[in-house]
């Protein structure tokens, strides 16, 4: 073992310092398994101080590192760096404080998303951001990728629900960002940190805002004989002035998959299903439900079901939430794509995706957060057929370019990570990316923290803009 590694070994007890090939194997990829890399070692800190020690060790020896939680990233955001350190935060999984009166929870980064709502439930509170991975994904990962879910139109993304964070910067220094207040009086540094994909540091303590649980839900499932009609129904709901908590659409392939997996009782012959959920105070929701019924009736739905109780509601959602993994039953392999278009362009986007699908000879299932314009085309392929993976990736890229061309984004909730970094130039100009790079380099001049992610290019070289501010300040020097 080289001397640097022995030094690291002294910082972590056996069992929390992994270097044997067999121990490293489970960490070689995240949920985007197309990419694999072998880390130099894995450490499993159990405290803020241990994270600081690991980061300082990396800074001292110029070794890049990635922090990760449960590894559910679909963009390869928590893919290890070849020869870098992997800092696994799953053991930092405590709920440190739940203050029901002030409606906040303080958690360690390895705390699981769904557990926040579970812990808050006895007080009539919940944690609003609910990515589909919420039973396993961690708050630290959610923070790093500004994760979304089905409720972003009304409630915003993770960033809107993080009040404060204790952060270890890439040089090992600790700072506190934000406060318990919903307001602040200076630049929103925390806003910058959330969603920075691990490039600006590691959060070791996170203060989350809790919301009162809505009193009532009204969940409607509408079946259509065309995707266009479902898309138009979404536009009509919005035009009526209603603000549903969630609006989701699934196409026939997604319906077939979900039905095969969880038997949600969806109408199998439907070309498109729309789920609309109203939530809030009972008298208000009851009144809104009547407007919604009118809108849905006029939208040409051939079958409409309203969940009569919590069980029926859960069943509707179970099918939707299972759709991604269920597609695995229809195809040996698939890519989950994540792009956003303005809501009014959904119809156009779907039509063009259909044409692309035909052109590439690959099936595409569509599941999407229609209220947010967030598409999730699932590109089905067979990895054993020569060249199919490559075609699938090309098709995925075409879809992302399409999203940008329509005025949208290359990612709504999965982040850029490893997968989409080459598409950043579709969305941002050189000057835009340069400004982001300058921020990153100011905090991490050696690009140690999650190196190789988010920014285009393979191994990001040092891109100093004149003398580095740190250098000017005499804090660092190039030896």
């Amino acid at each position, binding site marked *: 073992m080289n001397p640097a590694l022995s030094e690291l070994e002294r910082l972590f007890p056996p069992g929390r310092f992994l270097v044997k090939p067999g121990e490293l194997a489970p960490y070689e990829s995240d949920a985007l398994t197309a990419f694999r890399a072998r880390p130099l070692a894995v450490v499993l800190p159990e405290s803020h101080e241990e994270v600081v020690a690991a980061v300082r060790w990396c800074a001292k020896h110029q070794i890049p590192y990635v922090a990760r939680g449960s590894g559910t990233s679909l963009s390869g955001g928590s893919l290890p760096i070849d020869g870098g350190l992997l800092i696994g935060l799953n053991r930092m999984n405590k709920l440190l404080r739940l203050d029901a009166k002030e409606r906040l929870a303080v958690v360690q980064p390895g705390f699981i998303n769904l557990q926040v709502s579970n812990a808050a439930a006895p007080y009539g*509170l919940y944690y609003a951001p609910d990515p589909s991975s919420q039973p396993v994904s961690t708050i630290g990962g959610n923070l790093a990728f500004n994760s979304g879910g089905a409720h972003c139109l009304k409630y915003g993304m993770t960033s809107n629900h993080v009040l404060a964070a204790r952060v270890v910067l890439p040089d090992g220094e600790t700072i506190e960002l934000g406060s318990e207040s919903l*307001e602040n009086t200076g630049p*929103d540094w925390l806003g910058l940190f959330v969603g920075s994909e691990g490039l600006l540091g590691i959060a070791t303590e996170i203060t989350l805002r809790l919301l009162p649980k809505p009193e009532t839900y009204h969940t409607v499932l509408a079946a259509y004989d065309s995707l266009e009609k479902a898309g138009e129904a979404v536009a009509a709901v919005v035009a009526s002035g209603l603000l549903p908590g969630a609006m989701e659409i699934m196409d026939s392939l997604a319906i077939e998959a979900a039905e095969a997996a969880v038997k949600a009782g969806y109408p199998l012959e439907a070309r498109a299903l729309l789920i609309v959920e109203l939530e809030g105070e009972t008298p208000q929701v009851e009144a809104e439900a009547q407007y919604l019924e009118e809108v849905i009736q006029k939208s040409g739905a051939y079958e409409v079901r309203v969940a009569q109780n919590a069980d029926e509601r859960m069943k509707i959602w179970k099918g939707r939430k299972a759709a991604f993994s269920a597609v695995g039953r229809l195809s040996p392999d698939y890519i989950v794509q994540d792009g956003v278009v303005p809501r009014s362009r959904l119809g156009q986007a779907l039509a063009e995706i259909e044409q692309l699908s035909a052109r590439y000879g690959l099936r595409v299932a569509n599941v999407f957060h229609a209220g947010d314009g967030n598409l999730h085309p699932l590109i089905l392929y067979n990895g054993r057929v020569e060249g199919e993976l490559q075609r699938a990736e090309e098709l995925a890229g075409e879809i992302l370019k399409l999203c940008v061309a329509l005025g949208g984004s290359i990612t709504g909730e999965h982040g850029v990570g490893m997968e989409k970094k080459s598409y950043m130039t579709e969305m941002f100009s050189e000057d835009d990316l340069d400004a982001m790079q300058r921020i990153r380099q100011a905090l991490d001049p050696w690009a140690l923290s999650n190196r190789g992610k988010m920014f285009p290019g393979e191994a990001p070289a040092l891109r100093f803009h004149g003398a580095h501010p740190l250098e000017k300040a005499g804090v660092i020097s190039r030896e």
Partner: protein
Amino acid sequence: MTLMPSSLAEVQEVVRTYPHIRPRGGGSKPALCAPLEGQTVLEMAGLSGVLEYDPGEYVLVARAGTKLAEVEALLAEHGQYLPFDPPFVEQGATLGGTVAAGLSGPMRQRYGGVRDFILGVQFVDGEGRLVRGGGKVVKNAAGFDLPKLMVGSLGRLGILTEVAFKVFPFPKATATLLVNFSGLEEALKALYRLAGSPIELYALDLEPPATLALRLGGLPEALPARLERLQSFLGQTGELLREAAEARYWRHLNPLPLGEGRLVKVALTARHIPDLEKALGSTPRRYLSAGNLLYLSWNDEPDRLDALLKAQGLSGLVLKGTVARSQLGINLEHVLGHKVSRALDPQGKFSLHAPLP
């Protein structure tokens, strides 16, 4: 010196040419845009106008110098509004100034503040380069969240030239209940109970000494039942404001009419209120958003307020009235802030402090 650019290129040119720059929108927050000696004022009124607005998207894109009044009038034509309810609409406040100051009003209670609604931003950095962040769709996770970074940035990180916001439908009917309590303790108890309940309030303000101002919004047919529930939840009927009187009540509050002193914004949580109430004496003030935001009018020396806020572990921002430094209370500066400021403005052209002679 004051310059009035009328194009992006002119803003870039000014930044490249002059050593110290202070941007100014409508001038409704004079403490934040009054130039220090040696600073060139950049009047942003020439960069105004709504660029994109499709009511069906709930998204509005406009140049930073656009007046809030213009935006609100346009949104109102389609039954929509800026849900963070920015102050100083009739005083000429602009979108850019509102973002740079990070200001929200009473209705932030329902869906969140300005940081929760900004989607995209374009600004000129300290080297005159045009930088975009975010986008114009309601869900977006691409790149660093520069739009949020600019909220409350006070012109220190760049000159805002364009902003994109998520907007929402304005409730078809609203009603306001003014409820008096026997004392602060009772009022706070009710405030906490309301904030933790499923009752959805557009505003939840505490008007000292012990009055809660509660605004309900929604469908007209549901409002009577909801009002009744709210009254029974509180155990009293309160004073009900409807229609024109209700609209007037909130419009009157939009300029934060707290008196002639220095107008200060304070970020806090409700648990700070009892101590503050003891310390603030007769200072005119109003707590917004379930005790997360305080606006007050300070008639005494700024140093005394600074000390008072520090003692409570709070930070404040002076919006109106002369002060040497607009930020009061605890020091929120940290190494991340310094490094990010230097990254975007390496020559310190946007520094908030007086340039060295």
